[in-house]
C-alpha cells in the first residue's frame, strides 16, 4: 500500500479515503432526518409481514410473486401486461425527483436515499459502540489492543447484522414471509435466495460501512447530473459568507473580539471558526467554502451552526437553507420557496398529468387480457370443397382474483363457421393464461364480403365485462 502515498506531487490515480467521523448533532433537520429514517425502516422491515386477506394467494399485503408472474400491492394485482402502469410510476418518480431538486436541491439525497439512510444508521451504531467523534478518532489512532479489537469487532459485527437483516427482509417480499423464514432457517430455499441474501449483505455492508460518502461522490449517477437542475432560486444549505466573514474574515473569539459589537467594530464576521459544521458533515466537506457537489443537502451543518449561534447568543441562520440569489444579495430577505418558475411548474404539471393517467390506468383495467393472432403459416387454407379456412390463436389471461369461465363466440358470421374444438367454454385460473385455437371457415361466396370477424370473449360471472376483438380474415396472399 506504500505506493498510494507516493510523492506528494505525483499525479495519483487514486486518492486514499480520508476517514470521516461525523459528530452527532441535535436540531430540526436532524430530527426530521431521524424521523424519515425510522419511518423508512419501519416500512421496509415490517411491510412484508403485513397480513392482507386474499383468496388465492398468500395473505401478504405486498408480495412480488415471481413464479406466478404477478405483483400484489394491497388490493392491486399487477401482471407483466401492466407494464404501462410501471412505466408511468417510474416517470412520476423521476419527475418528482426533478421537481424537488429544482425546489429544494438534493433533498432526496439528504433524507430519503437508501445510501444516506443506511449510512446514517451505520453511523448511529458506530457512535453507540465507539462513542462520540473525539473518542472514535482516538480509537482509530491508538495501536491495536484488546479495547480496539473489541470495539471494532462489535461495530463491524453489528453492521454485518444490520446488513444481513436488510438483505433478509428484501427476500421476504418475494414469498410468504412466515413460510420463507421457516424455510430459510431450515436451509430449504433454492440457492438463489441464499445467494441474493449474501450479495445484498455484502453490498449493504460495503456501501454503508466502508464506502459511505464515496458512493455519493464517485458512484452515484444521479449526483452527476443534478447540478443542471439547480437554478439560482433553488434552496440549498448555504453559508452566509457576508455575515460569517465580515470584512476581516472569521475568527475564534478571543479577548477583545468576544461580543458581537466588538467583532463588528473590528470587521470580524459572526463565524467563530469552531469547525462544528465541518465535524458533523457526513460528506466530510466544509460548507463555508461554498456550495459543493459533494454536499447532499442533509442540513446537519445548519443544525450544528444554529446550536453554536444559540450558545454564543448570535442570531441563528449563519448557515441556512437559502437560494443563491437571496444569499448573495446585499440585503438577504427571509428564505422562501419559489414555486413560480417555468421549470418547477412544468415538472408539477407533468406529475399531475401522469398521476391522473396512472389512476385512470389502474381503475379502468380490464380483468381479461386478450390477444388473438392469426396463424400465418399458412395464412389461409383452401379446403376440399373450396371453402377458405383461417386459424387463430386466442390467448386469454385471467387477471381477476378467482377462477373464471369464459365463453368464446364470434359475431357476424354463421354459427357453424367457427370451430373451437372442445373449447367454446373454457375456465382459466386466476393469473393464468390459456391458448385456444379457433378455425374459421367461410364459403368462397362469403369470403369477398367478410374481411374482418369479431371474437367476443364473455366472462360468465360478469357478462358486462365482455371483450370484443376484431381480426382480419385472409383469403388471398397480400402484396
Amino acid at each position: 500500500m506504500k505506493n498510494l502515498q507516493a510523492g506528494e506531487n505525483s499525479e495519483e490515480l487514486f486518492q486514499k479515503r480520508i476517514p470521516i467521523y461525523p459528530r452527532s448533532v441535535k436540531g430540526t433537520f436532524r430530527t426530521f432526518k431521524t424521523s424519515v429514517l425510522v419511518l423508512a425502516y419501519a416500512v421496509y422491515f415490517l411491510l412484508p409481514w403485513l397480513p392482507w386477506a386474499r383468496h388465492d394467494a398468500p395473505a401478504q399485503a405486498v408480495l412480488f410473486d415471481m413464479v406466478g408472474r404477478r405483483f400484489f400491492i394491497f388490493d392491486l394485482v399487477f401482471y407483466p401486461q401492466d407494464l404501462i402502469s410501471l412505466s408511468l410510476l417510474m416517470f412520476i418518480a423521476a419527475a418528482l425527483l426533478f421537481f424537488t431538486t429544482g425546489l429544494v436541491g438534493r433533498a432526496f439525497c439528504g433524507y430519503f436515499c437508501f445510501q444516506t439512510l443506511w449510512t446514517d444508521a451505520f453511523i448511529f451504531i458506530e457512535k453507540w459502540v465507539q462513542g462520540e467523534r473525539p473518542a472514535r478518532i482516538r480509537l482509530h489512532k491508538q495501536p491495536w489492543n484488546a479495547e480496539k479489537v473489541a470495539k471494532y469487532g462489535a461495530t463491524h459485527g453489528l453492521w454485518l447484522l444490520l446488513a444481513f437483516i436488510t438483505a433478509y427482509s428484501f427476500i421476504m417480499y418475494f414469498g410468504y414471509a412466515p413460510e420463507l423464514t421457516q424455510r430459510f432457517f431450515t436451509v430449504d430455499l433454492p440457492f438463489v435466495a441464499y445467494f441474493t441474501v449474501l450479495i445484498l449483505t455484502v453490498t449493504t455492508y460495503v456501501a454503508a460501512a466502508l464506502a459511505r460518502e464515496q458512493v455519493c461522490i464517485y458512484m452515484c449517477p444521479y449526483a452527476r447530473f443534478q447540478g443542471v437542475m439547480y437554478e439560482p432560486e433553488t434552496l440549498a444549505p448555504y453559508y452566509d459568507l457576508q455575515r460569517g466573514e465580515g470584512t476581516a474574515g472569521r475568527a475564534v473569539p478571543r479577548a477583545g473580539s468576544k461580543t458581537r459589537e466588538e467583532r463588528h467594530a473590528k470587521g470580524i464576521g459572526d463565524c467563530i471558526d469552531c469547525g462544528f459544521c465541518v465535524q458533523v458533515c457526513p460528506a466530510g466537506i466544509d460548507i463555508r467554502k461554498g456550495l459543493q457537489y459533494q454536499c447532499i443537502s442533509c442540513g446537519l451543518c445548519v443544525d450544528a451552526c444554529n446550536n453554536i449561534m444559540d450558545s454564543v447568543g448570535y442570531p441563528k441562520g449563519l448557515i441556512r437553507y437559502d437560494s443563491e440569489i437571496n444569499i448573495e444579495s446585499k440585503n438577504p430577505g427571509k428564505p422562501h420557496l419559489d414555486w413560480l418558475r417555468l421549470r418547477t411548474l412544468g415538472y408539477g404539471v407533468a406529475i399531475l398529468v401522469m398521476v391522473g393517467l396512472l389512476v385512470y390506468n389502474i381503475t379502468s383495467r380490464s380483468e381479461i387480457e386478450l390477444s388473438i393472432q392469426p396463424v400465418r403459416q399458412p395464412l389461409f387454407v383452401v379446403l376440399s370443397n373450396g371453402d377458405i379456412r383461417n386459424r387463430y390463436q386466442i390467448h386469454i389471461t385471467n387477471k381477476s382474483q378467482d377462477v373464471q369461465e369464459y365463453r368464446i363466440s364470434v359475431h357476424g358470421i354463421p354459427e357453424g363457421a367457427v370451430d373451437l374444438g372442445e373449447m367454446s367454454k373454457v375456465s382459466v385460473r386466476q393469473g393464468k393464461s390459456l391458448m385456444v385455437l379457433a378455425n374459421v371457415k367461410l364459403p368462397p361466396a362469403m369470403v369477398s364480403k367478410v374481411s374482418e370477424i369479431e371474437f367476443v370473449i364473455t366472462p360468465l360471472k360478469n357478462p358486462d365485462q365482455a371483450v370484443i376483438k376484431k381480426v382480419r380474415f385472409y383469403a388471398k396472399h397480400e402484396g
Partner: protein
Amino acid sequence: MSQGNSQSSNVKTTGHVWDGDLQELNNPLPAWWLWAFYVTIIFSVVYWVAYPAWPLGKGFTTGIATITYKNDKGVEKTTHWSTRALLMKDLQDAREKQKPYFDKVAATPYEEIAKNPELSNFVASAGKVLFSDNCAACHQSGGQGKMAFAPNLTDDDWIYGGTHDKIQASITNGRHGIMPAKGGADLNESEIESLANYVLSLSGETMDAAKVKAGDELFHGKGSCVACHGADAKGNKDIGSANLTDKIWLWADVPGAGSADKKVAAVKEVISSGLNKGVMPAQNGRLSADQIKLLTVYVHDVLGGGR
C-alpha cells in the same frame, strides 16, 4: 507519451535515462487495480483446481468438480465438469419437467386431450417443437406442405385418412405413394389429354365437353383408373389413392397454373409418368411412442387438419 519534462511534472521515475533526457515514469497502480489483480490470481487457482484447465499431451487436467446426469436412455453417468455434461444435465432436467405432461398425454385418450385445455396447450407448444425438428423439413413449419412434394396437413383432405389412428399410423410406419405410369404402352397422347380434361372437370373446372366425355369413358374403361381411384373418383384412403373430385391438388400444381392449358399439362404429366415419390419415412424407432402420440394430436388438433 512522456513529453512533459521531469522538472515540471514531478512524477517519480524509474531512474533510467536514455538519450540524455528520456525517462520512464513510475506511477503507482491504484489500489483497486492491485486488489483486483490479486483476486484474479486467487480466482484462477481456485478455477483450475475445480475445472478442466491444463492441457497434458493428449489429455488435460480434469479438475475436481463433477456432474451427474441421466442420459435419454436413463443411464446415470458421472463425469468431470464439462459444458457437454452441463448440457446433458440441462436436457435431463428439461425431460424430467416435461415428463409428467408427456405421461399424461400418453395416458389420455385422444378425445379427452382435446377437452382438457391445459393438456391441449402443452401439446400446442411441445408439439410445435417436435414438429419443427422432425416434420417441418418436408411439411414446412406451419404444416402447409409443398406442392408436388409433401401434402398440406392443415387442409381437410387426407390421402391416407385423417383420423387420429390413421395419422398415428402414417407417422409410425411412413407412407409410400405409387401410381403406375399410363403413358407409352397403355394410352396414347390424345387419350391422356382426354383423361386430364375429365379429371379437371371432376374438380369443378369447366373443360372441353367432348374431351371430358372421352376421358370419362377411358377412366372407367381402358385406362383402368377406377381400380385405384374408384368409380366415383373419390379415391381410396386404404391404398392412398387421391380423391380427384375435391379442389386440393398435391402432385399436379393446378392452383398454381396460370392458364387452362397449363392445368391440363400438369395433370397429363402425372397420368403419363405416374408417381413413385410420395415417400414419407417411418418415424418408428426415431421417435418414441409418446412423441408420436403427441405429434398425432398436434397434427390433428392444432394444425387443424383433423378438425
